[in-house]
Structure formats: C-alpha cells, structure tokens
C-alpha cells in the first residue's frame, strides 16, 4: 500500500497524469471539431492523424515522406540555430568577462545590454535579413543576438555573486588577476552561465524558425508557411508545430543534462 502511494505521488507519475489529461482534452476537442467542421485537419486533427502522417511512407512531394521532409528541413534550421547559439554564447560570456574586469567597459555596455533585452529583436528579423542580404546569415545573427543577452546578463550576475570574503581570501593569498578568475570567479559563475544557456536555447530555435518564414528555401519555417498556404498537406504543419515544441523543450533539458555532466557540484548535490 505504501509503495503504491509513493508511486502515485512521485514526480514522474504526477507529470504523466498531467500529460494524459492534456491529451484527453486535445482529443475531446478534436472529436468536436471533426463533427462540426468540413476540414478538421485545418483546425485540430487527432493526435493519431499527426503520428500517422509522420510514420506513413506516402511521398508528399514526389520524393520524400513527411518525416524525411521535416527532418531534412529541421537539420538545416537547427544547425543554423546551433551556430548562432554558439556565437551568442561566446560573445556573451566574453563581454561579461570584460565587463567584470573593467569598470569602464561595464558602465559603457550595461545600459545597452538592458536595451537589447527590451528591444523586440524578433521584430527586427526582416530588416537584418535586408541588411545582410543573405537569409542564412541573418538567421545565425538573430539567433546569436537572442542568445547573447541572457548569457551575458547571467554570467555577469555570476561574477557579481562572489562573496567579499572570497575576494579577501584571494587577496591574502596574493593571487593575481588570472588566478583570481580561474580559481574563484569563473567557477562561481558557472551555474549562472548555465541558467543563461537554458533560457536562450529555446529562443535561438524560435529565432531560426521565425526567420525561415520570411523567405523561401530550406528550413522548418519555410515548410511551415508553405503548408499553411496549402502547398502540401496540413499535417506537415502539425508535424512541425509538435516537432518544434518538443525540440524547444528538449533543448532546455539538454542544457540541464550538460550542466550535470560538466559540473561536479550538480552531481554531489543530487546524491545527498
């Protein structure tokens, strides 16, 4: 009895119940739509229909099945998002380092760092596309800008979080700047750095898909708008919606897993 109770209240079980509840609600709605609409797949198809469209071997554009098509475009979109993400991480953490090293740079950059957060960068996607003239480049740039702010802000907060006592200890060790950073500052900011990574991973993917929709070519966003315009079956649209949702969530958890692998403090914390 006790065991059953423990299973019933475990976190995984609770989350499972919620997912099942969401699926039930979705299906109820889908049944309703099916009865009242002529083209239910345009509004809300059954989940089974979406899964079918992914597993069926019917070619939808002459040469590829839905799954192959989504995967091919996803590869293009995700690789661009990934490149932008890495550039954004590098630029963001380097800026945070410089800001913590030099008061002048911090004062210079901090207000603009705040501004970047407030400016709707995604709204600027079309103009960046126009400036670079190359859709592939602008996807990478926007993904990088969106990644940049959370990483820089969080890493800087990490540098700031080092207690005064630690600074005093390093001072009494006569540690130089380099030692101070490698021994105390950088290890202290790693958890904050990963918070920044977790926030920006889904954003980089969103950015990449959104910029896709602006122009034709290859990419999930292009496929999404083609499907919405009726160039191919609507199920491709639903496949992409679910695929990007899953990828967005996975990218968030992937960063958490990465943190656990790379950072010993996480593993020690878990064992206790």
């Amino acid at each position, binding site marked *: 009895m006790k065991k059953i109770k423990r299973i019933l209240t475990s976190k995984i079980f609770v989350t499972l119940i919620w997912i099942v509840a969401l699926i039930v609600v979705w299906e109820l709605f889908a049944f309703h739509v099916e009865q009242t609409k002529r083209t239910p797949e345009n*509004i809300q198809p059954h989940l089974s229909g979406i899964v079918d469209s992914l597993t069926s071997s019917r070619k939808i554009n002459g040469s590829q099945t839905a799954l192959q098509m989504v995967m091919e475009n996803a590869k293009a979109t995700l690789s661009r998002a990934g490149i932008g993400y890495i550039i954004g991480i590098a630029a963001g953490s380097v800026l945070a380092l410089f800001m913590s090293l030099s008061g*002048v740079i911090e004062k210079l950059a901090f207000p603009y760092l705040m501004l970047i957060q407030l400016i*709707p960068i995604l709204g600027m996607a079309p*103009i960046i596309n126009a400036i670079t003239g190359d859709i592939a480049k602008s996807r990478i740039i926007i993904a990088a800008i969106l990644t940049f702010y959370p990483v820089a802000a969080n890493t800087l907060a990490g540098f700031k979080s080092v207690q005064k006592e630690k600074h005093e200890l390093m001072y009494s060790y006569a540690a130089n700047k380099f030692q101070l950073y490698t021994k105390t500052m950088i290890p202290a900011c790693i958890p904050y750095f990963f918070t920044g990574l977790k926030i920006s991973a889904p954003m980089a993917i969103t950015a990449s898909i959104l910029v896709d929709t602006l122009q034709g070519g290859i990419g999930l966003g292009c496929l999404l708008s083609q499907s919405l315009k009726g160039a191919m079956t609507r199920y491709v649209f639903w496949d992409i*919606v679910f695929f*990007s949702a899953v990828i967005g969530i996975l990218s968030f958890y992937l960063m958490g897993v990465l943190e656990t692998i790379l950072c010993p403090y996480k593993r020690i914390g878990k064992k206790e």
Partner: protein
Amino acid sequence: MPKKINVKTAAGSVIYPTLFGAAVIISWQTGFLHKLLKTDEYVLPYPTKILHIMHENSDKIMLNVQASVKVALLGLLLGSLIGYFIAIIATVFPKYGSGGLTIVSAFNAIPIVALAPVFINWTKDVSEEAEVRSMVAKVLVVTVTSMAAMSVNAYRGLTELPPFSDDLMKTYAAGKVTEFFKLRLPNSLPYIFTALRVSVPGSVIGALVSEYFAEYIIGVGRQIRENILIAQYATAWAYIITACIIGIAMYIVLMIVETIALRKRK
C-alpha cells in the same frame, strides 16, 4: 541609512554610455556605419530620414501602436492572472499542482512561431470579423507566453516564506485562509514583479511575432514586415524604432509601478 553615492562613478555611468550612443549615431549619420556593415543608405536609412518619416506618418504609426500595445497588455494581464491562479492552485494542492507547474514551464519552451498559427486556426469561429478574431488569437499567444513566468515566480513567492513566519501564524492560531491573505499573498508581491520583468518585454515580442501570422493586417510588427516586402525600408525602420520605444516605455512604466508598490519594503 541612505547609501552615499560616489559622484564620480555615478557621472561615469551616465557619461560613458551616452558617449558610446552618440558615437554610434554619428557614425550612422555620416555613413561610416554603412561601410562597416557593407550596406547602403537605402536599406539602412540615415537617422534623420527615419525621424522625418516617423513624424510624417505619426497618425498611422499611432494606430498600429495602439493595436500592438492593446494585444500586449491584454495578453499580459490575462496570462499573469492565469499564471497566478495556477500558482495558487499549486500552493493549495502541492503534489499535483507542482506537476502542473512543470507542464506550464514546458509551454514556455515552445517557440512562439509554432503557437501563433495554431491559435489563429482555433479562433477562426470566434467572430465574423477578421479584426476581432485576429485580435483574440494574438492575445492568446501573448497569454501563453506570459503565463509561465508568472506561475513559476508566484509559486515561489507563495511558498518560500521568511523563516519563522509560518510559526508566528501558528501561534496566532491563524487558519489556512488567514495565513494565505496575511502572509502568502503579501510575500508574493516582489516575486510578481520579478515575473513581470521577464514577461513585459516578452509580451511585446509575442504581440509583434503573432501579428506576422494574423489574418488582419495591423500592428507594429506586421508593418515592419509589410514594408520590407514592398522594399520601403525607411518606413520599416520607422516601425522598428517605434517597436523599440514601445518595449522600453512599457519597461519604464513597470519600474515606476514597482518602485511605488514596493516602497514600504525598502
């Protein structure tokens, strides 16, 4: 005790950024920025030209600003209320509620671009008029995006109580309801503002992006896109600057409200 402000550092934190900003604008106006970005003044018009266009089209811009701000604010309000409500439920029923919180925060990771077309599909029957149903769809997108930040932060505010305050409530023999209104609710106030700091800029972005997909053509975000499509870059820039001003203005308003609401706690 009021903190002594070092005049020299305070002046520095104003002067340096101002100089930097001025340098960027001057290099923009003189065409140096164009060389740097390898672009021409057609795609990247001079600031004076953008300001001129903003002034000329101020009526039309205001119309679009109203539409976008309405979407952002309505969605923000709805999302925050629902988010707070979820947090309350999670506090009252901790076991199943916190599982729900996990799901809600997972929603946050869903790209807005995927949400927007789905909501537009769902709201096809809401109204006969394209303007109204597009509005509903856009508000719903912003609602979902601002819900997660609020529910997660409010939950922390409702459950992470100051030490011994719980015991104090017990010695008063306070019931659950009294405890909720006298302790948990006031305790969550600063956390609400933490959430809003994330969701206010987020709501503007959500509004602009959902406009891209909406049926009815209105809003600052949509105007950026429409003007680029017809190669009216200067007008598009005018809307971009407008979008930035909206984002910054809403954040400043939030800061003012926060200072007023939390002034007794400082």
